[in-house]
Structure formats: structure tokens, C-alpha cells
């Protein structure tokens, strides 16, 4: 509880700092501070400083060092859990808030109302819908429980991984992982060899399976929020099926090999859990409601409203309202015992809320600079990453070690800046899909697939590791997972994907 309070205070601080700066900076602007002059002084070039809304083109004037807080928060998320887990566990909301403030204060001070607009824009358009979707999926999926005894045979294990891979796109990788990790651990409880099952579970259920809809993996939902049509992600079925198929077949034979090494006791089925069944099945209705709400927001045009100076589509607000209702209905109608048996708590979603509050604040300059393409401070990156396979591997490599949601957004923006500089979303997304679809495919698959490369690539990875360890599975270390498992089994498949598709 204390942690929650501290965390809430942290996020509150970020928001309040932003809001309180509005009046101060607004007053400063009225007294003659000219952001254009500041921009010229910083960058030395004045010719591209006028943006589409009559303000500055921030991407053209922001210096490269303005992305330091973004790099800082991503590195904090990657490094602290490994080197100082207890410190991180206690203080991550403050660290997130710190990076956010480090960026927000000078940004607001220098660019005033325009900065405030950018901040409000990313929170209203991206952050709030992003958190609402994850919360709703997490709440609904956490209300479904697979109970009963399962035999941990190669066939049953492979079938569970296949089911997890398929449903991950519809309940989210976090929801699918939460739903299936305990049943699969129970099924294999007596087996001596079960690490490979958890590792392939991370590969397939916690990552690759989520690539077919925006509900599946956070990067794809960010893409949806930026204008990628809901059903476009189904076009990823080619690479997704190839990767999943190869991994499932590989897993099946690997599990047969380990099964043969098991003792008689290891092969026995634990019958103590009773008959197989699903509890909380009515949550599927709420899942349908979430799906319907998201699809609705992508197909219905209901006009716009202005929130804190940011234009937001009414259909998006309706979607968010529907999602909240679905989550609340799930909370009210699901037995407490089901959630307890699932080990359900609000902590994972609070983590996402705190950390992404910082990520979305600090990502503003990175996105603006990348959107400016050749005119931004990251022109070198824009020039270097030009081919679809570049995007697949670079977005993927960074998604392996940094969270894949902001990485996806960064490279989506890079592609926008490279292919159609100056064209606003969602028009630019439609043009990319129409004329250069392969780039979007490469970024999407790179970010989603390679989130499986390390424990820190995608949010559910650590959760699965943690649950498995507490259930008596000795999981590999960070580098053990990377070198003994993901590099061995994933990289060859990704090379194949790269050759075949990009």
C-alpha cells in the first residue's frame, strides 16, 4: 500500500509539474519570450522552424540531447531490475517521474504553450487509451481461470502453447500469459525438465502470438492509435505463422526428448486438481465488448471534441468508456476466488501506468525529431535505416533490450519521417500501407517478435519468469536465457523471416 501511495504521488508530481508550468510559461510567453529565437540559438538553422499548426516544427529545432531522458528511462527499465531489483521495486515510480520532470521542465520553460500542447496531446491521444486498454484486458483476462489436472505430455504442452499463441492476439500477451502459465506449470509440476516449456511459453504466448491484432501486443495498439487500421495487423499472419509453426514443431520434438528422460514419477499426472474446466467464462462476453469497442473506434466517424486543447475523436472516447465498463463489469461479476487462484493483483497494471507516464512524456522529443526526418537531429539514423530489413532488425534489436512499445513508436515515426516527411497522421499511415506496406510489416514483426529475445523485451516476460520461479522452476539467468535459448532458437528463425519477407 505504501508503494502505491508513493507511486501515485510520483505520477501526480509529473502531472502537476506539467500543469503548473502552463501558467508560468504562458505568462513568460506573454512577456515577449520568442521560442523561434530560442530555437535558432540552439540549432543554428531557422528555415524549417515553422510547423503545420503555425507554431514551431519542434522536430527540426529540438537538439539531440533532448532525448536523453527518453534513453534514460528506457535504460532504467532495462538495467535496474537486473542490477538493483529491490531498489527498483521500491522506487520505480519516482525514477519514472524524475526522468519525466527532467524533460518536462526545460521543455515547458523553452516552448511554453506548444510544449504543453505536445504533452497533453500524447497523454490524451496515446497514454490514457493505452492504459485503459491494458487495464481492461488485464482485468477481464484475470477473471478467467483454467482449473483442473492436465497431463504434462509433449502433446498436451504443445497444444497449450498453440492455444496460448492463438488467443494472445485476442486477450493480449499479458492476459494470455496470466491465463495459461499456471495451468501449464501445474501440468508439468512433477517433471524434472520444464525450463524449456516456460522459455517457449515466453517466446510464443508472451510475445509472438500477440502479433495479429492491436489487442495482442502494446506496440500494435500504439500503431492503431496512430492510424493503423485494426484489421491490417491480420496481414502479419504470414511471418507470424511461419515463426510460430517452426517454434511449435521445435518445441514438440524438444519436449519429446526431455519426456524420454523423465522418471516414472515425472510422467505421472497430478490428479489432485480435479476435473479440467474453465471458471469465469462469462468474461469472454466482456472480452467481446473490448474487441467491439476497439473495432468501433477504428470504423466509426463521430466527430471530434477538444480536451485540454487536444482534438480527440468522439469514437475514441466511446471506446475508452466501453472498455472501462467492460473492466468494471468483469470486476463486479467475477468471483473473488477466481482472481485469487490466478494470483491476480493490480500491481502489474500500476507498474505499466507509472512507467509509461514517464515514457510517454520523454518520448516527445524523439518522436518529433524522427518525424522531421532529414531535418531533425536524428537525420543520421533516418539516412542509415532505409530498407525494410533494416527496420526489422534495428527495431527488433532495440525491442530486445528496451521495451518494445516505445521502440515500435520510435521506428514507426522514423519510417513516416523517411517516407513522407511533413505529412500528418493518420494520412501518412494510410500512404505507408498503400505504397510501402512492407516497412510497417517489418517494424511490427521486428518489435513484436524480438520482444521475446530477453526478459526485458516485453512486459509479460518477467512476469512469467517470476511466476515460474515461485512455482519451483529454476529459470535461466538473463544471459542464460539470451545465449542458451533465444539466440539459439529465435535468431535462425528471424533470419529466415528476414530473407523470406524483407
Amino acid at each position, binding site marked *: 500500500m*505504501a*508503494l502505491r501511495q508513493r507511486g501515485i504521488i510520483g505520477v501526480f508530481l509529473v502531472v502537476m509539474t506539467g500543469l503548473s508550468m502552463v501558467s508560468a510559461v504562458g505568462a513568460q510567453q506573454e512577456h515577449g519570450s520568442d521560442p523561434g529565437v530560442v530555437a535558432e540559438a540552439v540549432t543554428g538553422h531557422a528555415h524549417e522552424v515553422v510547423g503545420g499548426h503555425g507554431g514551431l516544427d519542434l522536430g527540426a529545432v529540438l537538439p539531440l540531447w533532448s532525448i536523453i531522458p527518453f534513453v534514460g528511462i528506457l535504460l532504467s*527499465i532495462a538495467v535496474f*531490475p537486473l542490477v538493483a*531489483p*529491490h531498489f*527498483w*521495486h*521500491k522506487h*520505480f515510480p519516482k525514477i519514472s517521474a524524475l526522468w519525466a520532470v527532467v524533460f518536462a521542465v526545460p521543455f515547458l520553460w523553452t516552448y511554453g504553450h506548444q510544449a504543453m500542447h505536445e504533452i497533453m496531446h500524447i497523454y490524451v491521444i496515446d497514454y490514457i487509451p493505452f492504459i485503459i486498454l491494458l487495464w481492461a484486458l488485464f482485468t477481464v483476462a484475470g477473471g478467467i481461470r483454467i482449473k483442473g489436472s492436465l497431463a504434462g505430455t509433449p502433446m498436451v504442452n504443445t497444444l497449450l502453447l498453440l492455444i496460448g499463441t492463438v488467443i494472445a492476439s485476442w486477450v493480449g500477451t*499479458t492476459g494470455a500469459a*496470466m491465463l495459461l502459465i499456471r495451468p501449464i506449470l501445474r501440468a508439468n509440476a512433477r517433471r524434472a525438465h520444464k525450463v524449456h516449456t516456460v522459455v517457449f511459453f515466453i517466446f510464443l504466448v508472451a510475445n509472438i502470438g500477440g502479433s495479429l491484432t492491436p489487442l495482442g501486443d502494446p506496440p500494435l495498439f500504439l500503431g492503431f492509435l496512430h492510424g493503423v487500421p485494426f484489421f491490417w495487423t491480420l496481414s502479419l499472419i504470414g511471418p507470424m505463422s511461419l515463426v510460430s509453426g517452426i517454434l511449435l514443431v521445435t518445441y514438440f520434438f524438444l519436449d519429446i526428448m526431455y519426456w524420454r528422460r523423465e522418471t516414472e514419477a515425472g510422467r505421472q499426472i497430478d490428479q489432485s486438481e480435479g476435473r479440467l474446466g474453465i471458471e469465469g467464462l462469462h468474461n469472454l462476453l466482456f472480452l467481446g465488448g473490448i474487441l467491439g469497442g476497439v473495432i468501433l473506434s477504428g470504423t466509426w466517424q463521430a466527430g471530434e471534441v477538444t480536451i485540454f486543447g487536444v482534438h480527440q475523436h468522439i469514437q475514441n472516447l466511446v471506446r475508452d468508456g466501453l472498455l472501462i465498463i467492460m473492466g468494471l463489469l468483469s470486476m463486479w461479476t467475477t468471483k473473488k476466488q477466481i482472481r485469487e487462484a490466478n*494470483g*491476480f*493483483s493490480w*500491481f*502489474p497494471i500500476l*507498474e*505499466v501506468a507509472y*512507467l509509461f507516464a514517464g515514457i510517454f512524456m520523454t518520448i516527445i522529443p524523439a518522436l518529433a525529431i524522427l518525424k522531421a526526418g532529414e531535418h531533425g537531429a536524428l537525420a543520421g539514423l533516418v539516412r542509415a535505416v532505409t530498407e525494410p530489413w533494416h527496420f526489422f532488425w534495428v527495431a527488433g534489436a532495440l525491442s530486445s533490450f528496451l521495451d518494445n512499445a516505445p521502440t515500435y513508436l520510435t521506428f514507426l515515426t522514423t519510417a513516416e519521417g523517411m517516407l513522407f516527411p511533413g505529412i500528418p497522421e493518420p494520412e501518412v499511415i494510410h500512404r505507408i500501407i498503400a505504397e510501402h506496406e512492407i516497412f510497417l510489416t517489418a517494424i511490427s514483426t521486428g518489435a513484436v517478435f524480438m520482444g521475446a529475445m530477453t526478459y526485458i523485451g516485453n*512486459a*509479460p516476460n*518477467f*512476469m512469467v*519468469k*517470476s*511466476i515460474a*520461479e*515461485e*512455482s*519451483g*522452476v*529454476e529459470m535461466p539467468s538473463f544471459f542464460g536465457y539470451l545465449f542458451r535459448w533465444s539466440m539459439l532458437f529465435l535468431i535462425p528463425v528471424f533470419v529466415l523471416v528476414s530473407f523470406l519477407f524483407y
Partner: protein
Amino acid sequence: MNNETFVHLEMHGSADEVKAFIEGFRLASGEQRVYSTVRENIKIDGFFGSLISKAHGSTHFVVPSDFSGQLGEAVEAVTLIDVRVESSRPIDHGELNFEFKCFSHSDGVAIREVVETELPEGVVLEGYETDETIDSDAEGAEMYSPVHEYVLIGRGQFHGPIEGIIAMGRRLDDQDFIHPGRIHLVYSH
């Protein structure tokens, strides 16, 4: 187990021939207590020493001294293959370091039972330290800040007759979350 003397037996010859010879001799004599240093994770000469030893055509075993004596006599009579006893050093005792880290109370209980109870005759546990942490703030699953509600870490060293140390090494190997080191041989002067 008794206080019978064991020796570190170094055999020279083709590794396959040496193993076949030892296995045949073991079966003929009815002796069960013949241990391969590779299989039992017994440290011989360090990494480079092991490489040199292997290149030199040496294979190492830990066997009862009586068995070693009989084997030495038998080797003298061998003519079909080229094997010989390179050395036979009496072992005073063995040492085995270990450490563990687990994340559930039930695993902690199981590990403690393995490490602390029913030790083989003569084997003692030295330098044993454990640290049990229960952090109620860390209850439940986390995605970005993975710490465990329950953590038990520990380390120590088993010390005693080599046969008992080998038995402990096998027992620790069978238990998840325990990481035994290599068995060290301490020779009689």
C-alpha cells in the same frame, strides 16, 4: 559407509579402453564404488590441467584402495590393450561447496531438508549461512520490477569422507535451485 580409504586412480591409455577395462574389472570383482571424476564432477587439475591430462591420455577415477591394488596387479597382466596405472594417491577427505537461491517457502523447506538432514556418515556441514527474506511489498506478479515475496539464499561446504561427499554431490544435483561446485580432493600426506 565406513572409513575405508579411497584413492584417486589415474589410468593411462585410450579413454574407451580404460573405461571398458575398469568396468569389466568392477563387474568381475563385484565392487560398486567406482566413481568417474568426470561424471561425479570431481576437480582434478583445473581447466588447463584437465586438458593436458586428457591430451596425455589420462582417465581419472576414485576407487577403494583395495580395488586399486587388485586393479594394479591385473593391469600388469594385460597384453591385448595398452593401459596402465599412472598413479594412485590416497584421499584423506573431500570438500564440496554449494550455494542456493529459491523463491518459494516450499522450495526452501525442500532445500533445507536436502542440505541439513540425513547427511552421509562422517560428512559435516561447515560455513553454512542462510538468509531468508520475506518482502510483503513484493507479493504477487510483477512485470517491470520483478522481485519475489520470498527469497532464501544460502551457501556452505560439505566436508568428510569422499564417498559421502560424492553422495551429497549427487543429492544436490538432483535438487533445483542448488548449485554445487566441483568436489575437491584433499590427499593424505
